């Protein structure tokens, strides 16, 4: 009898290990998935990637120096396992893992990281306007020093606390492979990464097929093959999903959520993305230099109605134009309060005219709002809905469509009077989120130029102490909220429709990184 507990424990242990083994094999190790979006890479050189969706394929082929957790977007060590910065904020030391290998089995060293980093500054490679070009603009790079195979010292010309976040976007590339190519342009057709998948087939504008790299340094992935298919038409993408031709679809209108949800074997995942929609003011126009008026326009937006009608209640109001994890959680979004809007406007001496619009000194409160979204976009419906809400409250906002190039040119040259409507996208790095309001920034179309705002922005930009930086950034956000230099609207709604068997946590940045994903048997 005394042996009973021992036997019982052994049987239990055996049962549990068998159960775990069964559970562990619950996924299909030979699974292939097809993901479709409107864009696949236009070349195999990630430096040329200008589209977010296209960039997703590279996230599976390459490793980045750091990585952002797809759930929280917080920075995590990756190829760089440790880092430190000296007191001046100008000298960074990075310790690199010694077990990272390329898909050809070559070890990755500090030399490769320096090569990869300096590549984003190579004007012959990175096209203007591309993501890599954007990253390079974030750091005033001075030089690099290789201490040993796994230690890299990076010198900057100015303190850059956000540097690790920039490195979370830089792909690790094999220096010897890329330097052995006959020309820099050859990298657009040859590829070598350290990521969990390698390219097995690439047909321009059609598909890119990735195969599992079994010797991946973090262990092999659970999906064998991933195909990224380019299908421009959203209806076709959804038809493919409905018929089982593809397993994952991105980018469709929120108005289709209910319909797709009813399909067999399909599930919908939605997240607040990294792009923030807002209405910008022309701050050179005295009409919009009044804080109370700007606040009134924020209070006059009935977001709940828009959210319910256009976004199936999936897109909350933007509380501040900073993405998590950097946003100050104590800030509550402007609530719809027509009475408050009215009192703020009337408090500034505006009265309703015969057309029922507020007017002061013969000038109506409002004007045209340039936008460039296509007519079918839900975001076009959004601005028209706001225009109607404003109209009922005596504020004139007349949406005027501009062809995108015309739109950008007019905004850049200040050939507009009152409002512009757009979105601003960034990489969840805090600083980049709010940079569009910084004086001198080319995308500060409204010419917002506030001394206190800039002082806080510069302080945050150079503060190396994390706790202090957070404090300054929260103060900047509070100030930004109070000043309301824009009408805060919403974050982009990132939508995915997936085969029910595909288990995957998409990242809110919209990039389709399938690390950790698996397909149930």
């Amino acid at each position, binding site marked *: 009898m005394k042996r009973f507990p021992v036997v019982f424990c052994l049987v239990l242990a055996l049962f549990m290990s068998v159960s775990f083994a069964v559970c562990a094999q619950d996924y299909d190790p030979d699974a292939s998935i097809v993901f479709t979006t409107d864009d696949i890479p236009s070349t195999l050189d990630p430096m*040329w990637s*200008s589209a977010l969706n296209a960039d997703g394929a590279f996230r599976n082929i390459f490793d980045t120096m750091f990585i952002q957790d797809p759930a929280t977007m917080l920075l995590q060590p990756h190829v760089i396992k440790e880092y430190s910065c000296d007191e001046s904020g100008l000298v960074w030391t990075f310790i690199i893992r010694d077990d990272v290998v390329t898909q050809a089995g070559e070890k990755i060293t500090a030399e490769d990281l320096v090569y990869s980093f300096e590549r984003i500054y190579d004007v012959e490679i990175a096209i203007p306007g591309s993501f890599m070009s954007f*990253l390079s603009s974030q750091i005033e790079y001075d030089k690099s020093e290789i201490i040993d195979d796994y230690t890299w010292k990076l010198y900057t010309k100015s303190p850059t606390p956000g540097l690790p976040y920039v490195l979370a976007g830089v792909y690790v590339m094999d220096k010897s492979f890329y330097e052995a190519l006959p020309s820099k342009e050859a990298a657009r057709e040859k590829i070598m990464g350290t990521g969990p998948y390698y390219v097995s087939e690439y047909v321009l504008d059609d598909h890119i097929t990735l195969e599992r790299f079994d010797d991946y340094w973090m262990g092999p992935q659970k999906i064998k093959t991933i195909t990224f298919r380019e299908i421009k038409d959203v209806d*076709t993408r959804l038809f493919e999903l409905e*018929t089982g031709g593809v397993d994952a679809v991105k980018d469709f209108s929120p108005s289709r959520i209910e319909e797709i949800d009813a399909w067999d074997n399909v599930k919908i995942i939605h997240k607040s993305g990294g792009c923030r929609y807002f209405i910008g003011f022309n701050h050179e126009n005295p009409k919009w230099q009044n804080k109370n008026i700007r606040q009134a326009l924020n209070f006059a937006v009935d977001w709940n109605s828009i959210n319910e009608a256009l976004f199936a209640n999936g897109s909350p109001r933007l509380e501040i134009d900073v993405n998590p994890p950097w946003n100050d959680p104590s800030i509550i979004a402007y609530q719809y309060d027509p009475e408050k809007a009215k009192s703020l406007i009337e408090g500034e001496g505006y009265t309703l005219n015969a057309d029922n619009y507020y007017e002061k000194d013969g000038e109506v409160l409002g004007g045209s709002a340039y936008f460039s979204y296509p007519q079918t976009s839900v975001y076009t419906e959004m601005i028209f809905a706001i225009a109607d809400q404003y109209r009922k409250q005596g504020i004139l906002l007349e949406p005027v469509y501009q062809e995108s190039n015309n739109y950008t*040119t007019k905004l*850049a040259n200040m050939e507009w009077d009152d409002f512009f409507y757009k979105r601003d*996208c960034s990489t969840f790095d805090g600083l980049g989120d709010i940079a569009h309001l910084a004086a001198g920034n080319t995308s500060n179309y409204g010419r917002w130029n506030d001394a206190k705002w800039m002082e806080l922005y510069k302080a945050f930009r150079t503060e190396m102490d994390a706790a202090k930086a957070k404090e300054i950034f929260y103060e900047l956000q509070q100030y930004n909220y109070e000043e309301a230099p824009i009408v805060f609207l919403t974050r982009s709604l990132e939508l995915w429709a997936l085969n029910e068997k595909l288990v995957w946590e998409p990242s809110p940045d919209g990039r389709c990184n399938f690390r950790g994903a698996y397909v149930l048997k």
Partner: protein
Amino acid sequence: MDYIIRRLLQSIIVVFGVTIVSFGFQFLSGDPTYAIIGEAQGMTQEQVDAFRHTMGFDRPVPIQYLDWLSKAFKGDLGKSIYYSKPNTEIISQRFPATVEIAIFALVLSLLIAIPLGIVAATHRNSFWDRISMVIALIGQSLPTFWVGLMSILVFSVWLKWLPVSGRGTFRQLILPSVTLSLYPLARNTRMIRSTLLEVLGEDFIRTARAKGLKPGAVLLRHALRNALIPVITLIAIDFGSLLGGAMVVETIFAWPGMGTLTVNSIFAKDLPLVQACVVFLAVIFVAINFIVDFVYVVLDPRVRLR
């Protein structure tokens, strides 16, 4: 010979006009620099200016045009910004897919339109005439995007007979080709019917019948041969349109041809490639029409006499 030379000169003028228009349109909506780099996020004004200089957009427009034209004459249609490849290389990769779908659609349309047109003409005002005219009317009235999506819904989603999209197998060719063939099918059916009716009323047809030829021989050897001459012009125009105008169908069916290439280049604001696509398709269209004019002279002696 005069006629051919005249037509050749006209064709050159048309191509020249297209180059001016396609080059000029990039300046119609603001600064082409911003068209390419978008919102220039993270770029300084100096970088924007440097890029404008690299692209040559800071030179006078006529100089830019002459520079582009001289290169185009040598077969250099510039380099794509989005694909980072010579435009001629990209076009040569994509053009076969469009030719494939265009030929299949055209052949399909003729295989149906010719018998349908003959039946309609030879059985004028009959039930079959009315049916064929209804088919022709439907084919001409329905927008391609709607037909494409409906055909996917019916044949791929409901019946599961054919794949939704893509290129690679014969089954994938069927839906886009059928969709694309609908309009030329309808138009050619109507054209064949009306020209055949006209020819059937001519004196030489009466003579052929008086000679004792069988009705089938009169129809095929005498009437149809003459009735098809104007149809040849339409076929050429159709073929040119199919090569250049398959954008909607190619986009719906994710067919990687010239149509999707042009759409991609427009969305990517890749102005050099947009220009190259427009000029290339215009040259093809003009060349086809020139060849048809030449064939027309061979087939119809009256053209030579005029």
